[in-house]
C-alpha cells in the first residue's frame, strides 16, 4: 500500500489516478482551473477525491435532503453537526443520529458493524453528550445459506461486541430478511445521548492561534479511501478493497469517551470545538471544523501520532483509523488538555493552529504538501442535479390486478406467518446485546419501542428504528410516508409523543435515474409525514450505491425516531395485563395486501400498488390515543405491522399465560392486511366507557382477554382456535432453527 514515489501533478493530469478514487474528470478540471488555478499535487488530489465523495459531500443528495423539515421550537441543533439535539425540558437535550456501515459490513461483517457502532457513538459524545442507548436496523438476505448465516452472526456479534464493551445498552432496533439484501446487507446504527443544554459543543475551529489537538488512537494505514469505497458500487473484486477494513478498539473508545466528557463538562473554558474523525479521517474533521468557523488552518503532519512507519501525507490525512477525535483548544490551555488525556492513558498532541487566512495548509517533513482554500474542499463541491426517471415497474404497476390472498385456512397461515424470519422472535440475536447496563431500560428489545427513564426527572424517552424497503419499493412516496408513520405508531404504542427523527437513506446507484427518482419520492413522502407529525429531521445519513453485481436493494430508508413520556409510569407494552380487559382495534382495516408479509409468503414476491392514506387523520388518531393513555385508560397497546392484526394478536400474549377471544367484522384474509396506522389496545372494563367516548368511531371493540391459553378468532367467513403455547413455540424456534441448519 505504501506509495513510495508519488506521481507529479503533471502525471496525475495524464494518468488520471483520481478516476479510481471516485473523482470525475470534470471535477478534476474544475478544481485545477477554477478553484486552484494550477494542477493539484498528489496529496491535494487525494483530499479532493475523498472530500468530494458522496459520503462526505452529499453532492448528489443535498438538493433532495432540503425537502426535509428540520426546525421547530424543540430543535436545539439540526443537521450539520455530529448529531442533532432536541429539547426535552428541564435544561436537558436528547442528542441522536444514525449512521450506515453497509459496505464495510458486507466485506468484513464483525469489524464493519463494530466500527459502525464506534463511529456513531463518537458522533454523540463529540456534541458533549453522554451516550445512553444504541439501536440497530439490520437487513439481510434470507437465512438459507452459510454465507448469510455468517454475515448475520458476525454483524450481530460486532454490534454487541462494541456496545457491550462500551457499557452503552443496545435497547432496540430491527432485523428483517429479504433476498435483495443478500450481497448487500444493511447495517444502520443509531446512538442516543443526553446532554445538559449548557454543555452543548460544536465542531468548529476558530480564534487565530488556537491549537488543533489530536487525541486518541494512533494513525495507521487503515481504511484509506474508506469514504470513497462507501460511495462506489462494488463488485466481486473485493481483494483490492481490503485495505479499507478497520479494526475497532472499544476499550480505547471508552477511555476517549470518558476523557472527552470530562473535558466538555468540566473544562469548557479550555475548549473551542470538538469533532470526531469519522469518514475521511483527519482531512474531513479538520477542514470541516475550519470551514464551519470560516477559519484557516495549518497542520504539521509530523506531529500526528503514527502507528506505522513511513506514512505519506496522503495516507495520514485519509486514514480512517478508529477512535480518534480532533479538538480546537484555546491557546494557553494545551498543557492542561494534554494532562487530562494522559490521565486516561491517551495521546493528546498539538498538530496545528487556527490561522487567519482561509487556507488549508499541510506541512510534512518540512515541506508544504497542501495549500488550498478551506472552502474548496467543503463548500465548492459541484452539486450534481440528478436526472430522474420513473422505473418501469412503477408505471406497469397500476395495470396489474390487485392481489388478494383469497379464502385462507387462517390458523395454518398464521402459524406459518409466525415462523417468517421477519416476524419470528429475534431473541437469539438481541440476547447477545447488553440491553440493561446503565439501569435506565424500562422497556428493552422486543417491544414496539424501547423506553428509557431519565434519571432525576419523572420523564422517559422512547426510541425506535424502522426501515422499510418493501413498501418503498412498490411506491416510494407512499412508502416513505409509511416509514415515518410506522416509527411514530411504535412510539405512540409505547405511550410516547413523537419528537424528531434521524434517518439513513439506503439506496442504489445514484447515477441511475430510476434510483434518483426513488430517492426523491421517498424523501418527499417522509418529509410530508414529518411535517404532519411535527417531527423534524435533525440528523441523518445517506448511503448510496447499495448494489452488488448490478442489482439494487429495495430502496430502504431507515427512520430512527425519539419520543417523550412526561411520566415514565405511563409507558405501555404490547402484553395484555388482565383477564376481562376489552380489546379495541384502532383504525380501519382495508384490503392492503401489496408489499405485505402474506403476499411474500404466498407468492414469493412483492407487487401491486399501495393505497394512499390521510396523514391528518393518522395524526388525530394518534393524539387521541396518547390522550387516552395519559388519562390512564389503557392497559396495553401495540401497533399493527408485519402480519397485520392476526400476528399482532398473538404478540399480545407471547409473554404471559393469558388468552384472547376476538371477533372481527371482516374477512379472514383481512386479518393479514397491513393497513398502516392501526393499533390494538386493551382497556380495563371500568375504563371502557370513557375510552369509547374519547376515541369515537376510531376504536372498535373486537374482543377480550381470557384466562384460557388460546386465541379464539371469529371472522366473517370462519372461525379458528389457535393453541398459544404451540404458536409461541413456532415463533420462538423459527430463527434458531434456521441459524442452526447447514447447507
Amino acid at each position, binding site marked *: 500500500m505504501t506509495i513510495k514515489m508519488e506521481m507529479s501533478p503533471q502525471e496525475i493530469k495524464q494518468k488520471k489516478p483520481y478516476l479510481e478514487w471516485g473523482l470525475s474528470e470534470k471535477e478534476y478540471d474544475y478544481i485545477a482551473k477554477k478553484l486552484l488555478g494550477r494542477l493539484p499535487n498528489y496529496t491535494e488530489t487525494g483530499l479532493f477525491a475523498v472530500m468530494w465523495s458522496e459520503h462526505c459531500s452529499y453532492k448528489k443528495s443535498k438538493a433532495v435532503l432540503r425537502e426535509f423539515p428540520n426546525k421547530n421550537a424543540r430543535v436545539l441543533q439540526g443537521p450539520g453537526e455530529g448529531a442533532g439535539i432536541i429539547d426535552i425540558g428541564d435544561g436537558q437535550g436528547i442528542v441522536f443520529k444514525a449512521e450506515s456501515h453497509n459496505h464495510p459490513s458486507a466485506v468484513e461483517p464483525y*469489524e464493519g458493524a463494530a466500527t459502525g457502532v464506534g463511529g456513531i457513538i463518537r458522533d454523540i459524545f463529540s456534541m458533549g453528550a453522554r451516550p445512553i442507548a444504541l439501536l440497530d436496523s439490520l437487513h439481510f438476505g434470507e437465512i438459507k445459506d452459510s454465507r448469510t448465516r455468517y454475515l448475520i452472526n458476525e454483524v450481530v456479534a460486532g454490534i454487541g461486541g462494541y456496545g457491550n464493551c462500551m457499557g452503552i445498552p443496545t435497547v432496540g432496533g430491527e432485523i428483517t430478511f429479504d433476498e435483495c439484501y443478500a450481497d448487500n446487507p444493511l447495517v444502520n446504527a443509531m446512538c442516543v445521548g443526553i446532554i445538559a443544554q449548557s454543555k452543548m459543543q460544536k465542531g468548529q475551529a476558530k480564534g487565530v492561534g488556537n491549537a488543533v489537538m489530536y487525541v486518541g488512537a494512533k494513525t495507521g*494505514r487503515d481504511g484509506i479511501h474508506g469514504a470513497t469505497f462507501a460511495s462506489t458500487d462494488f463488485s466481486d473484486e473485493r481483494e483490492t478493497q481490503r485495505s479499507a477494513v478497520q479494526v475497532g478498539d472499544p476499550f480505547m473508545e471508552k477511555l476517549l469517551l470518558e476523557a472527552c466528557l470530562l473535558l466538555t463538562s468540566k473544562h469548557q473554558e479550555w475548549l473551542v470545538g470538538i469533532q470526531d474523525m469519522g469518514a475521511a479521517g483527519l482531512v474531513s474533521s479538520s477542514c470541516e471544523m475550519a470551514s464551519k468557523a470560516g477559519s484557516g488552518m495549518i497542520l504539521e503532519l509530523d506531529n500526528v501520532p503514527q502507528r506505522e512507519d513511513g506514512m505519506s501525507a496522503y495516507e495520514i490525512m485519509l486514514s480512517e483509523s478508529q477512535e480518534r477525535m480532533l479538538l480546537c483548544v484555546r491557546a494557553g490551555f494545551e498543557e492542561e488538555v494534554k494532562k487530562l488525556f494522559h490521565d486516561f492513558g491517551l495521546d493528546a498532541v498539538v498538530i496545528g493552529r487556527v490561522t487567519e487566512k482561509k487556507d488549508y495548509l499541510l506541512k510534512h517533513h518540512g515541506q508544504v504538501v497542501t495549500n488550498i482554500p478551506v472552502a474548496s474542499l467543503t463548500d465548492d463541491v459541484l452539486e450534481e442535479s440528478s436526472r430522474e426517471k420513473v422505473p418501469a415497474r412503477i408505471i406497469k404497476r397500476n395495470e396489474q390486478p390487485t392481489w388478494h390472498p383469497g379464502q385462507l385456512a387462517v390458523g395454518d397461515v398464521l402459524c406459518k406467518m409466525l415462523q417468517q424470519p421477519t416476524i419470528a422472535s429475534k431473541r437469539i440475536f438481541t440476547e447477545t446485546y447488553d440491553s440493561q447496563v446503565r439501569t435506565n431500560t424500562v422497556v428493552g428489545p422486543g417491544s414496539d419501542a424501547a423506553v428509557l427513564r431519565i434519571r432525576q426527572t419523572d420523564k422517559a424517552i422512547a426510541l425506535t428504528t424502522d426501515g422499510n424497503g418493501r413498501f418503498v419499493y412498490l411506491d416510494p412516496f407512499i412508502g416513505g410516508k409509511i416509514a415515518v408513520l410506522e416509527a411514530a405508531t411504535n412510539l405512540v404504542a409505547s405511550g410516547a409523543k413523537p419528537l424528531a427523527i434521524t434517518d439513513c437513506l439506503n439506496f442504489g446507484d445514484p447515477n441511475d435515474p430510476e434510483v434518483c427518482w426513488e430517492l426523491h419520492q421517498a424523501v418527499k413522502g417522509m418529509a410530508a409525514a414529518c411535517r404532519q407529525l411535527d417531527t423534524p429531521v435533525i440528523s441523518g445519513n445517506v448511503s448510496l450505491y447499495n448494489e452488488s453485481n448490478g442489482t439494487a436493494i429495495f430502496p430502504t430508508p431507515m427512520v430512527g425516531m425519539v419520543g417523550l413520556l412526561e411520566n415514565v409510569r405511563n409507558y405501555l407494552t404490547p402484553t395484555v395485563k388482565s383477564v376481562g380487559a376489552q380489546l379495541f382495534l384502532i383504525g380501519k382495516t382495508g384490503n392492503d395486501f401489496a408489499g405485505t408479509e402474506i403476499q411474500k409468503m404466498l407468492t414469493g414476491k412483492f407487487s401491486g400498488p399501495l393505497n394512499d392514506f390521510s396523514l391528518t387523520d393518522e395524526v388525530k388518531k394518534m393524539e387521541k390515543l396518547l390522550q387516552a393513555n395519559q388519562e390512564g385508560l389503557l392497559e396495553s397497546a401495540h401497533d399493527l405491522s408485519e402480519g397485520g392484526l392476526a400476528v399482532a394478536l398473538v404478540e399480545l400474549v407471547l409473554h404471559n399465560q393469558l388468552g384472547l377471544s376476538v371477533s372481527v367484522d371482516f374477512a379472514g384474509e383481512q386479518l393479514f392486511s397491513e393497513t398502516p396506522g392501526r393499533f390494538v389496545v386493551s382497556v380495563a372494563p371500568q375504563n371502557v366507557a370513557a375510552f369509547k367516548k374519547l376515541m369515537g368511531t376510531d376504536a372498535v371493540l373486537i374482543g377480550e382477554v381470557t384466562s384460557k391459553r388460546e386465541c379464539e378468532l371469529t371472522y366473517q367467513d370462519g372461525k379458528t382456535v389457535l393453541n398459544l403455547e404451540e404458536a409461541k413455540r413456532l415463533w420462538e424456534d423459527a430463527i434458531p432453527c434456521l441459524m442452526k441448519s447447514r447447507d
Partner: protein
Amino acid sequence: MAVKARIFVTYKESVFDPQGQTITDAVQSLGHPEVKKVNVGKFFDVLLDSTTTDVAETINEISEQLLVNFNLETYRYELLEEG
C-alpha cells in the same frame, strides 16, 4: 497413526491489534521495560486421521474456508510430530 498439524493465525502486519497493544502496556507497567512488544495470535491443533491422502490440501482448505479471516489475518502451518 494419526497426523497432527498446528495452524498459526496472526493479524496481518498492517492491521491494528488493540489486544496486543493493551497487553504490551500491561507487561511494561509490571516492571518489564525490556519487553518491547507483545502480539497476540491463535493456533489450531488439528488431528487428522491417518487415511488423509493430502494433508496439505486439507489444512489449506479448512484454513481458507473456516479458520482464517483473510480480511485481517494470515496463516501458516507446520506438521507436528506425534505426541
